[in-house]
């Protein structure tokens, strides 16, 4: 996983509450086999008019936000479907950090697995950030994970809270599975306690192969 330490970048707004993951990556793009290339379809139905023409009214299409790598968002960002395609798209588009007052659980979790830092600030701080962004073209922020700060170098300096374990994993870009496998002996010991292994009492037609179409 890509580590996240400190990042300074152009900021873009997503000024809506309850942005769900269906909007981040609509269902027609859930049929691929890879984790890459979803940046093009991020916020697809909002971002494009018919024929994939950029919708000029959509914030991310405005020239001033081109190349943005920090996204300001509103409450309950990432609610709905568990699709990890959402953070894949956000990362692939170029965002390294999101700043919002709150996130939906699964999405929040998924961000960490993909080297994206979801920063949580209060509603008041978010209002302040949205307003500074609105007023200043080329508005940039620095997000420092080690020191847990967000700052614009022009008077906006805030500390944010983050779970220390998640912080450490993200700072070092640790591989979750590798970490767990270090505790192989604990897992084996647990398994020895007797596991409810599935018993198929009535035979059901489980198959190992699909008829090829």
């Amino acid at each position: 996983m890509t580590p996240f330490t400190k990042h300074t970048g152009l900021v873009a707004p997503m000024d809506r509450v309850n942005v769900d993951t269906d909007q981040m990556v609509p269902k027609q793009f859930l049929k691929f086999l890879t984790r890459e290339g979803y940046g093009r379809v991020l916020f697809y139905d909002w971002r494009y008019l018919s024929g994939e023409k950029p919708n000029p009214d959509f914030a991310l299409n405005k020239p001033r936000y081109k190349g943005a790598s920090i996204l300001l968002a509103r409450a309950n960002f990432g609610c709905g479907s568990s699709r990890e395609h959402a953070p894949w798209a956000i990362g692939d588009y170029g965002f390294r950090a999101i700043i919002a007052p709150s996130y939906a659980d699964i999405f929040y979790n998924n961000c960490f697995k993909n080297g994206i830092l979801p920063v949580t600030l209060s509603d008041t701080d978010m209002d302040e950030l949205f307003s500074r962004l609105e007023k200043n073209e080329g508005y940039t922020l620095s997000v420092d994970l080690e020191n847990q700060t967000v700052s614009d170098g022009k008077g906006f300096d805030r500390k944010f809270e983050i779970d220390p374990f998640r912080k450490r994993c993200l700072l070092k870009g640790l591989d979750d599975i590798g970490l767990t496998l270090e505790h192989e002996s604990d897992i084996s010991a647990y398994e020895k306690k007797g596991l409810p292994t599935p018993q198929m009492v009535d035979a059901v037609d489980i198959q190992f192969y699909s008829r090829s179409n």
Partner: protein
Amino acid sequence: MPPLTLYEKIWNAHVVREVPGQPSLIYIDRHLIHEGTSPQAFAGLKAAGRKVRRPELTFAVMDHSVSTKNRDLPVLDADADGQFKALAKNCAETGVRLFDMHSHNQGIVHIIGPELGITQPGFTIVCGDSHTSTHGAMGALAFGIGTSEIEHVLATQCLSQFKSKTTRIEVKGKLGGGLASKDIILAIIGKLGIAGGNGHVFEYTGEAIRALSMEARMTICNMSIECGARAGMVAPDETTFAYLEGRPFVPRGKEFQKLVEHWKTLPSDPGAKFDETVELDAAKLAPQVTWGTNPGMVTDVTQRVPDPSLFTNENDRKAAERALVYMDLKPGTPITDISLDRVFIGSCTNSRLEDLRLAAKLVAGKHVAKSLKQALVVPGSRRVKAQAEEEGLDKIFVAAGFEWRDAGCSMCIGMNDDVLQPHERCASTSNRNFEGRQGKDGRTHLVSPLMAAAAAIEGHFVDVRKWRNGN
């Protein structure tokens, strides 16, 4: 030992490793996967040279993109076909059991788990799908995960998890005629808001919940995630045991009795502490209809489309304004004046046998409104379909002008060809009314199967309580 909640009991029984200040390593009893969210997990596993640790604990099914028409025809959607083939190949290579689209047991992942008895009380169950919360109705701890976590479970059979907070939702009183468990959960989401359960696991208790069948409890647990909750649970009781007895993956005889004894120890102890408690009176509920673009934008069928200008919170007001533009609704419109283009009865929320029976009973001898373009019934699984056909429900639906289809997610998500056309309005028994969920620019109103069936006959929403009396 202090009194414990159902959640704490299951949690404690599954801790593999616990270190203060870190997430705990939790053992996963059953892992369910489908074609949509698993390919990248298998690919990751392979790339890292890792193996599936316990293939016999993972079950796979094809549900999201399967056709609900003739499944013997070639799959024309090359991307969907690629996912089906990848799932079949991954299962074959790793020894994971697969219910492919031709299996008699195929169906929506959250329908077949309980139906086959793969889901049992006290289990930890995960799936790369947010509606995994459904399985909690059985008294299991079940929740949705992302693809990285699927890979993690495949490789380790464990998950790294922080403990959630708990909310007890007590639903008192008796549910009136014409109401369904869908109305209870929609009312809860309306009350708490779609982020109201963030960071929490819900346990549903109370007279109204106890009176519900397993299938109706599943509807409630299913939509816990729409309230932001990590999981929803109902303590196992006689209804649960009776439901499970004789299912293909449930042991029989003495072994079953032993399991029941164990399951009886699971319910929350008297005096167990919850972080929060919410109460609701089922007797006061009216049938619910969503008017907006998330499941919390919901009201009684007797009400009108709300006026956003009366919302006090500015962000909520903006969201409501946007929602009404998207839904093409005017504030003050009576809900019963909203006319429909399509009706969808299906999805992991409401496509079990009981749902179909309720709907069939209402439409028997009637016909869907001429103004309707389509009324669709999609059973949640092939077992449900077969059973419904045995009971003649398919004939009732077809005679009433509904289309009777094969099992899958279908128009809940529109990943096959069951989609809304732009600006079409649909009464749907599914769980999400997000923008574009059922098709780009499609407009979704979430309702119970009873409400959907009655709306199909009339072409617009009706208060099914009165409608039943009047017909």
